[in-house]
């Protein structure tokens, strides 16, 4: 059984006996996983490639439903309900649980339209409201000063780091309660990475954050809680400051000291 630290804060999400099997696979990629996610804090998921951390992350906004044949069981509790049921409204779920991807994914449209996109999907047409919220989101993502004079320009003209901040602005603009980061800095240079990390830490006042990362230093720098996953199971979930110093499980210790991975 996994060693799971007691979380004193309110919980943003609760995973219970969650099991996930990909359409083409014989064995589950995630096995009977139970894990709480604290509200308004940052939970990092670490573990070697193929351990299931991205698979778990993509379960929180039901991304797996885009591809047929994937199977899951167990529960993920969000705002008092199990979001894994068939009657869950995926559109509104994904508005409340946003996601940032491994690579910047600027849409083929202007900077302004990129940030406004999620709001427009919700039917917000009022120009002044859109302008106000786009500006605020860009400020939240620390991008406003760099792009305020060229909001009408194609977003693909921005640098990689700027594009990733644009994606964060776009996700923040719809005011989600949870943000999922899937290795958000793996395609970025060190300076852009530092900028994104700073941003993630600032965001936790307003949203609960789960971040998947390959980079243990990153997990140590930004997160409050760290979960270590191995072969589809959660081995240990602890306070980041404790776990990197005194891991309770032997596997965790071996991983963070670089004995495997």
């Amino acid at each position, binding site marked *: 059984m996994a060693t799971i630290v007691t979380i004193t804060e309110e919980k943003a999400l609760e995973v219970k006996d969650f099991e996930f099997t990909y359409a083409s696979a014989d064995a589950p990629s995630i096995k009977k996983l139970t894990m709480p996610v604290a509200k308004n804090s940052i939970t990092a998921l670490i573990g070697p490639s193929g351990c299931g951390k991205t698979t778990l992350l993509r379960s929180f906004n039901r*991304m797996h439903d885009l591809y047929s044949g994937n199977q899951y069981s167990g529960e993920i509790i969000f705002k008092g309900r199990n979001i894994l049921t068939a009657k869950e409204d995926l*559109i509104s779920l994904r508005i409340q649980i946003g996601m940032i991807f491994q690579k910047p994914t600027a*849409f*083929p*449209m202007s900077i302004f339209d990129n940030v406004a*996109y999620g709001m427009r*999907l919700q039917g917000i047409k009022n120009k002044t409201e859109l302008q106000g919220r786009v500006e605020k989101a860009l400020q939240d993502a620390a991008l406003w000063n760099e792009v305020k004079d060229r909001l009408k320009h194609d977003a693909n003209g921005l640098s990689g780091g700027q594009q990733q901040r644009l994606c964060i602005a776009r996700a923040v603009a*719809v005011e989600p309660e949870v943000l999922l980061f899937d290795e958000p800095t793996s395609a970025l240079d060190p300076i852009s990475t530092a900028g994104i990390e700073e941003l993630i830490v600032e965001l936790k006042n307003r949203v609960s954050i789960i971040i998947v990362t390959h980079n243990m230093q990153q997990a140590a720098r930004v997160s409050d809680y760290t979960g270590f996953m191995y072969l589809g199971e959660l081995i240990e979930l602890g306070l980041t400051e404790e776990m990197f110093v005194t891991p309770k499980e032997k596997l965790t210790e071996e991983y963070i000291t670089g004995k495997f991975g």
Partner: protein
Amino acid sequence: MSILIDKLFSYATKFVAIAVLLLVAWIFTILFQNSIDSIEAFGFDFLTETKWAPNLEKFGALPAIYGSVVSTFLAMVLAVPLAIGVAIFLSELAPAKLKSPVGVSIELLAAIPSVIYGMWGLFYFVPIVRDIFGGIGISMLTAGIVLSIMILPFMAAVTRDAMNTTPDILKESAYALGGTKWDVIKDIIIPYAKAGIIGSFILALGRAIGETMAVTFVMGNVHKISFDLTEPATSIPVTLANEFTEADTSLYYSSLFELSLFLLVISFTIISIAKFYFLRRQRAA
């Protein structure tokens, strides 16, 4: 020794590549040379004259140009929405089990020789058009419909390929913001694949405008400009296919050559626009 072989190989390929360019230049020269009589006799009036009267030695290309433009336009108007629909279905909506069989059959349709479309059009489509729209069935409209059916598979297949180049992660980003399938198709996939899609349409346009066999059967080769689409008409390739055997005077012969020169220039222009403007970005990616 091996250096020598490398050199020989490089020269051989260079020669072949240059030979292709020479071939194109040769064709151009021959068309131009043979057109000189007609160019001298009619000048620019050749393109604006509506009479094509071999017995009077009077040749005007406008009816054929009009026929080419209108039949191609009809074909595009009919084929574009269908091609986009088929492509969207194949790239985004079709269940995995359907995707590949339907995709392959569409590619097979694109491989049907155009003469077969022509025969099929004459024997099965002409009566249908006659029954529904009136006239004798051999008409501009029939030509447009047959052309649209002929270019549809190519357009659909290339449009699907262009749509498939949209990275999954980009689509997922839009879904992750609460987008529906339709939102993702219209806001992400189509804008992303736009250049490739337009390029494929222009290539199809080039193919339609030069198409000979499929329309020769169903158009009628009548040199008359009529705004009634159920009337028979002609196009540049249809005229060429029908009349070379009848060209009994050198001016008649030369006029046909000028017509073909004009067609070559149009086709070249269209393909160049498609290749250099729209399909370049896709190639670089």
